[in-house]
């Protein structure tokens, strides 16, 4: 009989790495999303062009290809990354590109009259964004951000292929050592699902909180 407790610890350690990747990747994705999303709405052509190139490039190829590129090709350019850094970088940049489109869409969905009112009130561009447009756009972004975060979580499985010891990698280790396939893979499927589920519950809570302050503002 196989003693499963040791293997369970192994898998839980993997879960920790997956969690770490998801959190750090999401943080980077959030930053990139706002930079590129607002960049696409910029007055300056060069900023718009840069943001568009970034978005098209990262949406045009898959996370897998990007990860391998970051991990295997960048070292030749003198930039050697640990698997974790490469994973966070690739995941964050990839999901950031998708989320940037969400930011852009949500900002554009806020009515024109809001912008006009800001101009009439003599608010600066920064004040307009910070105090008027973004507070209304954020609740619109959240549901899609939730999907993006889950996509990112699912994307983390790919890092196992550059030998980062995440859930999927550990499951492979357990498979190699015990010869049992059903138990490790079912376990990690359930763990992934539990994580995805907690993300969507957390996001729903955040959404309720954020839209509460807007009660009666929007029709």
């Amino acid at each position: 009989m196989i003693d499963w407790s040791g293997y369970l610890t192994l898998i839980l350690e993997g879960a920790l790495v997956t969690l770490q990747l998801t959190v750090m990747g999401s943080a980077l994705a959030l930053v990139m999303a706002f930079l590129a999303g607002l960049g696409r709405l910029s007055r300056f052509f060069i900023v718009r062009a840069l943001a568009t190139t970034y978005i098209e490039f990262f949406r045009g190829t898959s996370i897998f290809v990007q990860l391998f590129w970051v991990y295997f090709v960048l070292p030749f350019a003198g930039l050697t990354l640990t698997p974790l850094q490469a994973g966070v970088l690739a995941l964050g940049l990839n999901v950031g590109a998708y989320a940037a489109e969400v930011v852009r869409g949500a900002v554009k969905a806020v009515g024109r009259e809001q912008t006009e009112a800001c101009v009439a009130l003599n608010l600066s561009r920064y004040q307009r964004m910070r105090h008027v447009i973004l507070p209304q756009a954020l609740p619109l972004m959240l549901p899609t951000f939730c999907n993006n975060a889950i996509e990112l979580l699912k994307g983390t499985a790919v890092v196992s292929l550059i030998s980062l010891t995440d859930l999927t990698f550990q499951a492979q280790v357990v498979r190699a050592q015990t010869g049992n396939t059903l138990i490790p893979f079912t376990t990690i499927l359930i763990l992934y699902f539990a994580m995805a589920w907690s993300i969507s519950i957390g996001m729903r809570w955040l959404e309720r909180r954020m839209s509460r302050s807007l009660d009666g503002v929007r029709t």
Partner: protein
Amino acid sequence: MEWDWEFVWQIMPTLLEGFKITILATVLGAAVAAVLGLAIAIARRSPVTALSRTVGFVCEFIRGTPLLVQLYFIFYVLPDIGIRLPPLVAGVIGIGLHYATYTAEVYRAGIENVPRGQWEAAKAANLTTRQAWIHVVLPQAVPPMIPALANYFIAMFKETPLLSAITVLELMNQAKSIANSNYRYIEPMTLVGVFFLAVSLVSVVGLRWLEERYARMDD
């Protein structure tokens, strides 16, 4: 290490060989996703609660877990119960099933967009449920969904590199084996990226055309 054009031309035939498999996997996967997605969408609307609930939960589960792990599951766990699939078949089933849960949502939205009156008219004309689906509802529901479906097929195309993890010899896997045997990563990995980017950019143009041809459906 720097870019070597001679090496590029030397490896091009092998990469194209892999690219063919990538296209094949995408087309087959798209067919599976298109058919299975419709089946899921119809099952979720079934009056039998047990069926619609179960299918709904299975979909949520598949959407909340990484495709890579699902591929491993199909490729490594199923042989234990006697189902031994060749890598490409396992890959097509995995990727088709995963994307079927997404296309099911597209179908659902499309079906819900058909006015209730159409159902009632079908009933009034004494059509059976089957006839109502085939002759009344689906012909109206499908054309507006085509752009959204195409969008998912492009996404699926970008996910095919994952099949290399279960030993399908597609583009990514060919590139990896070239890289490993020659110790040159820059050219193969970059070319894979270029291939995917090129196809994605072309397909975006195709998608615009589809959107113009068929009325756009916002989900």
